[in-house]
């Protein structure tokens, strides 16, 4: 706190405001602040889990706070800069290096050594997921992977059935068929999804990021976006002027597109949102085999400045390992990361079964690879990628211009 506050007058107000919270009281009760992003539905499940935790650890109280994804990081950034980050918080791969470089994340290795946090019992080597330069900066709560969510009724009527190993050409033929027979755009438009473009690049032996910069060239991106612009124009990809105002509803549930790429655990929300039946299809490939996929994950991290690292570790351990919590959370945060929670929750609904089957198939078909590094500044790169892809798709910016602007902005983000 001293270092930051000493450097800035403005941060002073933030630290002053936060000083009263997070400490213990006379009777040994400790209060932890836990913040995360997500929806109301997740809030309900998390509160139920916390009630269980407080019953088991009566000396620890948990105070929660949540926002949607983008707002979460704005708030977190402000809190963390004032030395007032929540004790425990939800985290993701794109933010690990960023906040490690800023000295915000607690190395949980020590707590694991002290026995407050178990690192055994994780599926598919997931415990390695939150490691950066030998430090354990986050513990995975669930695994997920990119998938293609499809409107099954539309796909069936168009006579399209995706199979593992299908190629990008086959995928685009399918989209054209949907467009012709169903009068609906085939896909919502994948050109702005950084994580999908990463897979596409990985299929060609490249990647979105290297440890310090971008892993692709202006020519690569020009090719990707030039083809996309043509497909938006021909109606194979949905009209962005219609999909943008439909948000937060997805283009698929708004019946503007037959399918779209997203994280597999998001599939849960489609059934609640739309009228049709929705399923998961595999990622198209370049060579008929390699999808470039890896398991991603939400993580729980702790603040380096927490006054209660032991309790924070105990709480993380509980949220990650406890079977009851696994039952309550279901696949909301992805397929549970630990065997105990994975065994505890057997999905009974169709979407849950599909997600389980999808990930099972991924693991068994051995397409999974190690994840691409996310350098500090990756989050800003993602936002710029989304925005410029949107401008390109709306015809507001020529492809060449969008590509040039992207490289300029990414360079600034990755160097600062």
């Amino acid at each position: 706190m001293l270092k930051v506050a000493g450097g800035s007058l403005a941060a002073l107000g933030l630290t002053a405001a936060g000083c009263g919270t997070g400490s213990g009281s006379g009777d040994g009760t400790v209060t932890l602040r836990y913040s995360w992003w997500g929806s109301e539905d997740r809030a309900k499940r998390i509160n139920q889990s916390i009630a269980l935790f407080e019953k088991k650890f009566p000396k620890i109280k948990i105070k929660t706070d949540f926002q949607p994804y983008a707002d979460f990081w704005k708030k977190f950034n402000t809190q963390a800069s004032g030395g007032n980050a929540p004790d425990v918080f939800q985290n993701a791969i794109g933010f690990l290096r960023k906040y490690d470089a800023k000295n915000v994340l607690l190395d949980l290795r020590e707590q694991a050594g002290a026995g407050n946090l178990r690192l055994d019992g994780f599926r598919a080597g997931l415990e390695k997921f939150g490691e950066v330069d030998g430090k354990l900066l986050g513990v995975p709560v669930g695994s997920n992977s990119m998938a293609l969510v499809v409107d099954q009724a539309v796909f069936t009527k168009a006579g399209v059935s995706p199979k593992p190993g299908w190629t990008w050409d086959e995928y685009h033929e399918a989209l054209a068929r949907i467009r012709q027979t169903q009068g609906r755009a085939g896909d919502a438009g994948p050109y702005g999804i950084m994580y999908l473009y990463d897979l596409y690049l990985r299929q060609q032996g490249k990647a979105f990021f290297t440890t310090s910069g971008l892993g692709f060239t202006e020519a690569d991106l020009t090719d990707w976006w030039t083809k996309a612009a043509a497909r938006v124009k021909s109606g194979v990809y949905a009209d962005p002027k219609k999909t943008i105002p439909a948000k937060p509803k997805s283009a698929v549930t708004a019946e503007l597109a037959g399918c779209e790429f997203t994280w597999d655990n998001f599939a849960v929300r489609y059934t609640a949102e739309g009228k049709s039946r929705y399923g998961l299809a595999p990622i198209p490939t370049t060579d008929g085999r390699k999808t470039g996929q890896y398991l991603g994950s939400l993580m729980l991290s702790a603040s380096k400045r927490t006054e209660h690292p032991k309790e924070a570790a105990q709480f993380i351990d509980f949220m990650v390992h406890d079977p009851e919590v696994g039952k309550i959370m279901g696949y909301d945060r992805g397929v549970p990361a630990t065997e105990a929670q994975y065994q505890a929750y057997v999905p009974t609904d169709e979407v849950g079964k599909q997600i389980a089957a999808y990930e099972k198939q991924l693991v068994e078909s051995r397409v999974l690879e190690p994840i691409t590094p996310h350098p500090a500044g990756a989050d800003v790169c993602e936002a710029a990628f989304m925005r410029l892809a949107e401008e390109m798709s709306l015809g507001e910016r020529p492809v060449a211009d969008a590509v040039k602007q992207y490289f300029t902005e990414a360079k600034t983000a990755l160097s600062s």
Partner: protein
Amino acid sequence: MDAAVTSAPTPVPVTRTAGEAASADSPAGGGRPPRAAGRTPRPHRARRENLAGYLFMSPWIAGFLLLTAGPMVASLYFAFTDYNLFDAPKWIGLDNFTEMFGDPRWRTSVEITGWYVVIGTPLKLAAALGVALLLNQSRRGQGFYRAAFYAPSLIGASVSIAIVWRAIFSDGAAVDRAQRVFGLDAGGWIGDPDRIIYALVALTVWQFGAPMVIFLAGLKQVPRELYEAAQVDGASPWRRFWHITLPMISPVLFFNVLLETIHSFQIFGSAYIIGSQGNACGPADGTLVYTCYLYIQGFENSRMGLASAMAWMLLLAVGLVTAVLFWSQRRWVHYEEGAR
């Protein structure tokens, strides 16, 4: 930092309050003509009254120093540094300003804001004056109408209205369907980066209540005899408006122009919310107003130094426009001698 960012454009209102405070202070002190020397020596009494004045002002002074002046000084310093909130600010001289002027997105935000001020402000004032003229006539139910027209301004600043606005102007929503009746099947305004700004203008025009009330007060001050005399001379309603009403309310008009222009420069909430799906501030930066970009640089990209530089640029611009307006008032604002 937050205070500096949001309060950057405030110095105009702030100096006004400071001026008021000072003038309120002076009659109590030295301004009063010395009465016949009483039992208390004058300087002593004046000092005591001053002290009381300062005592009463102290909450405001403390608030000003702590919440406005302090952050402003800090933000002026940050404007010349590279500061990401975490590491100590690094002095980089004018680099933030050079980067700003060379940034095409910054230029977009300047264009959009300029356009919004130039189009939105006159429309809003015209609407306010028009409705004020209607409400100035004595008719039945006037009280109800005044309240009804003022109501949008009361709730206008809220997030909920921006969300409702978003819904109204979306694809397939009310405005879109109304357009189709006239054969204009162009989709909603929200997804169209070229048209979404009109939704913002429509929102600000709809919130004309505050200037309307001020206009109404001004209209009440115009002496009836002037109209009667003009009517006797056979002046048409239009001529009466142009040659009597407008000059007579020109001080009020000036006040409204000034206030609304400054207000328009600071537009943030509605732009951020109405344009907030996918990317903050509009599809393809369609509602990227100046403060929106400032917010993005500061809070999304963690570039507080650059954001501070932008805030000071905005302050300069608003100051300049205000100065020009003040200079121009000699030509068109009519102050009655010994106003009633």
